[in-house]
């Protein structure tokens, strides 16, 4: 699955899509594939204040348990209840229906564009 060019990426394999001051965050197809079958997702509560680089959730697959790092600072405005109920959405549509949280951004963490991320992941 190619990495969409309109998204920003982090070294921890999250993507974010900015829409005004709200960023939608998910994990990349690369990360989802590495994790394997995702079975459980724990997301922060709406209203939580998060800071860039901090742990905001947990993603569990049949092989491992990984942390979800926030790529931005701000306040969580929405979480994707659909992926909590059907974690496999992250495997099937990581850049779409498998998004995880929306954050009202006060500051952006370190990100890269899709070209840099392609290089990082050898895509």
């Amino acid at each position, binding site marked *: 699955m190619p990495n969409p060019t309109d998204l920003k990426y982090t070294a921890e394999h999250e993507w974010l899509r900015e829409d005004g001051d709200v960023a939608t965050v998910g994990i990349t197809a690369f990360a989802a594939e590495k994790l394997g079958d995702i*079975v459980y997702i724990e997301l922060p509560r709406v209203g939580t204040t998060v800071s860039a680089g901090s742990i905001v959730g947990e993603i*569990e697959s049949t*092989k491992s*348990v990984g942390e979800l790092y926030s790529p931005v600072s701000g306040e969580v405005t929405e979480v994707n209840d659909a992926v909590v109920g059907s974690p496999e959405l992250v495997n099937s549509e990581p850049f779409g229906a498998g998004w995880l949280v929306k954050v009202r951004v006060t500051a952006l963490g370190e990100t890269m564009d899709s070209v840099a991320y392609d290089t990082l992941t050898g895509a």
Partner: protein
Amino acid sequence: MTSSFARRHIGIDSSAQARMLEVVGHSDLEQLMLSAVPEPIRVEHFRSAEDSFLPTPVGEREALEELRALANLNKVRRSFIGQGYYGTITPSVIKRNVLENPSWYTAYTPYQPEISQGRLEALLNFQTMVTDLTALDIANASMLDEGTAAVEAMLIARRASTVDSNVFVVDADVFPQTLSLLEGRAKPLGIELVVADLTKDDAPLGFGVLVQYPASSGRVVDPSAVFARAKAAGAISVAVADLLALTLLTPPGELGADIAAGTTQRFGVPLGFGGPHAGYLAVRSGLERNLPGRLAGVSKDANGEPAYRLTLQAREQHIRREKATSNICTAQVLLAVMASMYAVYHGPSGLRAIAEDVHAAATQLAELLAAAGQPVAHAEFFDTVVIPVPGRASDIAAAVAEAGMLIRVVDPDTVSVSVDELTTRAEIAQIARLIAGGAASSAASAASAASSAVASATDSATGSSNRIPAGLRRHSAFLTHAVFNTHGSETSMMRYLKRLADYDYALDRGMIPLGSCTMKLNAATEMEAVSWPEFAGLHPFAPAADVAGSLALVKQLELWLADVTGYDSVSLQPNAGSQGELAGLLAIRAYHLANGDTQRTVCLIPSSAHGTNAASAVLAGMRVVVVACDDHGNVDLTDLRSKISENANELSALMITYPSTHGVYEHDVLDITQAVHDAGGQVYVDGANMNAMTGYARYGDLGGDVSHLNLHKTFCIPHGGGGPGVGPVAAKAHLAPYLPGHTLAQSSQHVLLAGDTLSSIEHGGTQISAAPYGSASILPISWAYVQMMGLEGIRQATASAVLAANYVAVRLRDHFPVLYTGENGLVAHECILDVRPLTAATGVTVDDVAKRLIDYGFHAPTMSFPVAGTLMVEPTESEDIAELDRFIDAMIAIRAEADQVAEGVWPADNNPLVNAPHTAADLTGDWDRPYSRETGVYPFANTSSELDAHTRVDRIRGKYWPPVRRIDNAFGDRNLVCSCPSPEAFASS
């Protein structure tokens, strides 16, 4: 001298040995070992065989005679001591068909679920039993004992609580061994343990509270007020609860507890001088992902039918490594199966009747004492009556002991009596007489009056009055599932146990070549003494004089293990390898603290290490720094030196495994340990792979300061389907004072073997198990092994294990690359077969190979440890060449099948490998696969052209049939079901 037993234990006879040596290119066994084991570490450089303390080997009959002599030194009195350990009747149908049945005790942990459906069902029964009785939502299967289950409950509370506090509050009325475990384990983690009276309205709360229910003093007190206060504050409530009592008492879940912990010992598992027994841990919904240990769950197989597996395995400590919050690994499967079957056999009404009898006997005791004018401390109790006897406690206990019974001396002025399933009315009357009669011992006439009061009251004291508080009587139903209401006749029970055993693959069917697990023979003679009443019937806190035989056995085993490891002192207390690891690291921590080196907290761990190493280090309050490994899988010496210098001042320890987790004798080990010592650090050597060392090299000589051993690997204790384990910790003299202590131990003195001088030393370190000698009742197994093998037999076993691994490696290397070898191209006692090139070329995965091995009649080797996409094979010394060849033939045939996939004969998504394993049901119904049914189910019949007709027929007739097709892991993790599925679940599929 070679013992007569050695040739029974070692599967390779002399002609097979010659053939195998030829294949691996060595002239004799000693020469093979000289080539394999690096020269500088060999034991002969450190001491001569003549100085060994290992016994001269004896035959099986003589070993049993010696064990009988030790058993006769024990005196089994009826125990009324209680404190978490109670007399119980093991139903004979369970003793004979489970405890003494190799189909149950020689199985491995059910990581390959398709061939483990029987014990997974038994474990689901166990979990259902625990959740029903505690009225909580999810239980695991199982914990090592009650005390460590309470510790794990504390650790869950710390993670789950929303309170910003490091305080954990424990009710003052808990068992002393549990309190001291909690204290010892809290300290390195910065948890402050506060002991308080939690029945008070203003008791402190912290991040969690723990209450014993019923309490240590026997009282039955409603904890719901303190649980409600805890909940309001965001703290977590823990009830340590007696499962038998819960058939009559309002269960913890209905009182507001978030977690329940305890033991299932009194459900038919013998006292065993302290263990092994299955502890339990249950949580309310929402905390299940914080549960440590192993959790059986329901998923579905490739046909969509319900099938069982271990669930949420990704959260196990060995995956989480330094992020782990628990190091619990081994469970107590065999004992959990026994306890669950006790519930299956008795059913809810039977269990309740046992509890009512117990309660009636306790009530009768209180009534008899009251009639004689002797008060009791608490009016409300379940099974334990505490009696104030100012100044007379010891005298009374002595008089009761004289009569063949043991009661607990709480303090000089108090005794306590805990009754159990075995208690008779006559015993109660006698105890009452001895207690009440003594109340007036100064006046003989008064004494006799009191005695006659007891005697006359004995008829009227029916024990029918209910001493359970009215508000705490249980009204909710439990064990309503059919399985607990079907097998009440012995015929039905026997057949149920047989059916479940038949689902599973254990050592009584064939080889289990699991790398790093050492699935060697568990000889029948070694097992014999486990169920002797002189070993099985002892209470862990019985007086020293009563347990002299067991203590003598412990001392001998300590000495032999010290001798064979090159250490100075050994503690047999840890109940599993992980606990031995933790005990060893806590000893290192204590040593540094005693030297004033409070800053030494860094633990170096190679990247190849088993994940439990890192988890244990975290729980010992250490910070993990990972050391890289080189391309050969060895510790990268350059990286090690730089990590040491970066952390020189803070270096606490290095943990290494020897031979390495890659199954190689690392040549640089002496340089590695020297570098750590030069920097002031201590060396922990993980003894998981000791089966490649024993008799040829010793951890103490390699520069190890402390190690744990796995008696359930190297020293023949069976795996029990996933426990019990025994993980002794062995250390050099400077760490010995910090090995696990126990305030209730009959003796704190342990063997000290300094050089060739034998003396004793006190172990005073952090308590690691609930019982002073851990799983004492299974120590005769390892004792018998050493006694029957002697040094020479053990050396032969080691060399034969190394020969077998190298034979497999050489014969399979053209089909699957052998990933790592050491000096002279040799592996140690196991070899890693690399499946990744095959996966890249054909799409056939390591899972496919493992599951296809089931069709060929094998348990798979260890999968993806220590390297993902590989299989690690450890044949052990106990397999004969025919079985080794059968395995090799199967692997070669599987490789040929994979090649057919690569050649396009079979599609990548529909071939015998991806569809494996095949069940008997595959022989019926439609068949639309591009290979024959025969290829599916009888692959060995087609491919083993060299088989003679008789062998071929035998294999076809004796084929192992897996009961389910491949199990869907993701489905089970996504849809968590951890109790017995309803009959409808099967109907709908």
